[in-house]
Structure formats: structure tokens, C-alpha cells
């Protein structure tokens, strides 16, 4: 439990999303105070989730480690993760190319994820519609080794079974998931080409395990982003199964 306690102080602002954007400023301040206390302990932590790019910008690196502040309007945490084919993906490389990036927290055995890949083809449809317009889709599985739906083989199989046109990135240490404050699968984040988080929350407005939603919040936000407008519904409560972090 010690590691959990250490992370607790660090993860304060990630949970700010539950209370809406109002909380963000307060928790940034608290978070900076806690940063000073926590830095020495954090220095030795293994940074599997963060790639070479973050070495260039010291400040960003500090922020990455502390921030489970995936707060809408703030820079999204940088990461480099490997997908099930062994290919690496780095967030800043994509945004620098002018891409809008959609992150989908993923667990192929979670009924809510299954709903959107089997009963409905929500995610494949989104990809078909928005990928030609410069939007990159990445699924991220932060399940620890041995947990439900985790591991390269299981996720590679999902990509094949569900004919996913976008990769599943493996985050078995949970570092990226925790940096983003991801608690559920599916939980959605949209990052604009300036590296800021523009949307965080549910894929749509029906939290059941078997019914279609009426409003797809991600599609709505992408339409607004691509039209140069601000996102009208920037934060919603995501629904889904618990992300299977390590104990």
C-alpha cells in the first residue's frame, strides 16, 4: 500500500475531473505545493511511460511525473508507449504533425468496451469518419500484467477480432493511465494539435452495457475542434469497468 499512498498525493488533480472544471485551478496550486515535497521520492521512480522526447524539456518532465492533471485546457501529459505490434507512439510527435489525437482507455474484456466494438461499431465508425481529417486514434490498455484483458497477446487478438484500424498501446505499469487520471474503460481524451486536452469523459451518453447512446460526445467535440470552435461539452463523467491497475 505504500506505493499507493505515495501516488495518492500525486494523483489529486486527476480526480478533479469528477467535480468538473471548477476544481482544476485549486488543485493545480495544491499540486505544485505537493510537488516540492514529493520530488525526491519521485525522482527514483521508473519512468517506463515517458520516452526520450521528455528529456528535452525538464519542466515538462517534472509535470509529467506529478500530473495526473489531465485537466481540460491544460497540456496533456506526454507519453511514449509501444503497441501490440512493437511500434512506438509518442504523443508530441503526433501533435507536432498537426494531428488531433483521441485516446481511448481500453480493456477488451470489459462489457462496455465490448458493446462499442461488437454490438455497435462506435470506435471503428469514428475512425472511418475522422481519420481522413487528420485525427489519430490510440487505444491504451493500462491493465497490469495478469489482470483481466491485459497483455500483448490478448490485445493483439482484439485488434484482429474487432478489425481495429488503430493500435492498442500497452501501459502495463499504469503510469500513463495514472498521469491522465483514467479510471474506466472506455474513458476518452481528445488532445488538440497544440498539445492541450480539449475533452475528457465518456464516449457517449448511454452508460449501459448494451444500449446505443444518442449523443456521441467525442464526435461532437471533434466536429467543433475541426471547425476551429471551442468544445461545448468538454467534460463528462466516463462510464465503464475499472481500469485494472496493479495492486
Amino acid at each position, binding site marked *: 500500500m505504500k506505493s499507493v499512498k505515495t501516488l495518492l498525493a500525486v494523483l*489529486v488533480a486527476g*480526480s478533479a475531473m469528477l*467535480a468538473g472544471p471548477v476544481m482544476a485551478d485549486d488543485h493545480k496550486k495544491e499540486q505544485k505545493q505537493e510537488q516540492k515535497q514529493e520530488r525526491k521520492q519521485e525522482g527514483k521512480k521508473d519512468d517506463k511511460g515517458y520516452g526520450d522526447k521528455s528529456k528535452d524539456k525538464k519542466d515538462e518532465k517534472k509535470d509529467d511525473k506529478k500530473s495526473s492533471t489531465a485537466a481540460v485546457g491544460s497540456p496533456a501529459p506526454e507519453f511514449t508507449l509501444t503497441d501490440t505490434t512493437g511500434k512506438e507512439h509518442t504523443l508530441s510527435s503526433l501533435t507536432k504533425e498537426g494531428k488531433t489525437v483521441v485516446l481511448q482507455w481500453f480493456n477488451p474484456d470489459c*462489457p462496455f468496451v465490448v458493446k462499442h466494438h461488437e454490438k455497435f461499431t462506435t470506435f471503428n465508425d469514428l475512425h472511418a469518419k475522422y481519420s481522413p481529417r487528420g485525427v489519430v486514434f490510440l487505444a491504451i490498455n493500462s491493465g497490469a500484467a495478469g489482470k*483481466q484483458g491485459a497483455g500483448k497477446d490478448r490485445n493483439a*487478438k482484439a485488434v484482429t477480432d474487432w478489425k481495429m484500424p488503430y493500435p492498442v498501446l500497452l501501459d502495463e505499469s499504469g503510469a500513463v493511465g495514472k498521469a491522465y487520471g483514467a*479510471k474506466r474503460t472506455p474513458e476518452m481524451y481528445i488532445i488538440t494539435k497544440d498539445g492541450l486536452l480539449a475533452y475528457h469523459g465518456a464516449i457517449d451518453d448511454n452508460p449501459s452495457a448494451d444500449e446505443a447512446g444518442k449523443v456521441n460526445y467525442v464526435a461532437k467535440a471533434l466536429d467543433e475542434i475541426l471547425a476551429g470552435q471551442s468544445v461545448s461539452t468538454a467534460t463528462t463523467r466516463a462510464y465503464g469497468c*475499472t481500469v485494472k491497475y496493479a495492486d
Partner: protein
Amino acid sequence: MAIPSRVCNGLLPTVPILAVSMAASMVVAAPPTGTSTDAPSPAAPTPAPATQARPVPAPKATLALISDFASIGPGQEFTLALHFTMQPGWHIYWNGINDTGFPPNWELELPPGFVVGEPLWPGPKRYISPGEILDHVYEESVAILIPVRAPDELPRGDLTLRVSSKWLVCKDICIAEEGSASLTLSSASGADGSGGGAGGGGGGAGVIRAMRERLPRESLPEGASAGIERGGRGGMLEVRVPGARKVEFYPESEGIEASELIRGGSADGELLKLRVGAGVEAMTGVVGVWWSAGREPRGTPTGKGGEHPVFYRVSLD
């Protein structure tokens, strides 16, 4: 006039429900089924519906429809309940704030003229998962109580009541299950209903009485207090219950972040303090109190071994 009343509770909680006919999206299904997630994946994907592509395991939660009266008279008020029994280690969800999870929803099919009130949810148990994830759940067994009033004109003979429900049941993995149950009560025109008898009345009354003890009482007991102290950067929710050896808070409205609730949502002793976000105007929730021996207010049932605390509703603004 033989159209049965169909009553749904929506996916979102706290909507008062009267006998309104609602378009039913669910079909009453006789055997329990589930969309399994702990079974091996299918060898080859097909366009077939998900429930056919994956094998269905035995249900982790079973549903029964029970009543506290076996025999119902005209205009009589009684209580129905959705009684869920969970396999060891498995839980379903409360209808307050949860990080993940999804409370049961249901559709009741009642004879014409029956009116239902708002469902009553017993107090929950905190369930914390790695990654600072907080949910509020029910383990072992729970019944969601539904007040019902029979019409003044009651047909003779048997009354058949049905419920179909969908719920999420989890342990370390989650399974979406559905099930249905029915209950036959007898119509006692002109006679008083009684608590005994077969057909669900006898056993139902005992379970319902026990579940009533787990409902939140309307307000904190005398001498206890709850309030929000507002400051510049947010406020502090304080719940003080003299005589308590442990106090917990289960939120029904937003305003406190999960990490705060995980660290501070359960306090030893009589004082619980939680930081509340700036701009939070009002909060509702449930407080769970474990009383020190002899300190509980008169009339409080003393449960065996403190398995469940005594629940009280708090509404702060």
C-alpha cells in the same frame, strides 16, 4: 382496461416514478443471461450479437421479486422489493456517486391501476480499487424497496407482478447481467392483508423488514451535525456524530474528489472532515455511523457485529 402498467426506473437515479407507462426497451426474459467477460474469447468473430458469440456463465447475482404482504386489499399500501443475492466476492452498485460501476435498472409490470413511489436504496459499502478508484457497492444481499399502492378497484383472484432488470456485477472483473422475476399475490377484496402466507408474503416480509433497517434515516440524530464551511479556495464538509466510533460519507452529488473521499471519507471517531470543491453550492449524501456501545440513540436497532452501520441522509446547502 386490461393493459398492465409498466414502470421503468431510468438509468439515472433519483427520478420520482409514478405509474407512467413508458416505452419499454427491454423484453421480459425468463432465464437469467449474461454478457460474460470471464469466459474465453471466441475463436473467430462473427457479426452475430455479442451474447451469442460468448459463452454465458452462471449468474453472479440472482434476482427475486418479493413483497411484505401475500394478500393485497383495495387501496392497500405495501412494499415490493428487488431482492438481489450475490455470489461471495461479487457486488452490484448503489445509485449514488461511483467512479465506475452502474446501478441496476428495472422495469416493473404490474396489474392495472397500481401506483409505485420512488425506490428506496439501502446504504452502501465503500469499495476501493487500485489506482484510487472509489465505488459504492452492495455485497451478499440487498433489496431495493419500492412502495406500492393498490387501486381502489381490485380484480379478484391472483395478481401477477413481474420485474425485469439489468445490472452490472463485479468482483475484479465485471459482468453485465440481466434477469427477471415474478410474484403472485392474492387479491383480498375487502379484507386486510396479512404478513404471513405463502407465495412470497412470509419470507418477503422478513427480508423487507431487515432491509428497512439499512435505509438511510431522514436526518442525522439529535446532537449530530453536518455542514459545509466555505473558504476562499473551497470548503470543508464536517460531519460530527457524538457517540460514534466510526463515521463514513457516501456522496450522492458531485463536489468532493475521489482522492479526498478515499483518504477522508471514513474516519475513526466522531468527526469526519472532507474538502469540498470551490463553487459547490449544495450536497446530498448518506452518512454511515458505527455507534460506540450504548451511545446509539434510542430506537436504533443494534445489528449483529456492526456488519452495516446505521445510515442517515444529509442534505446540505
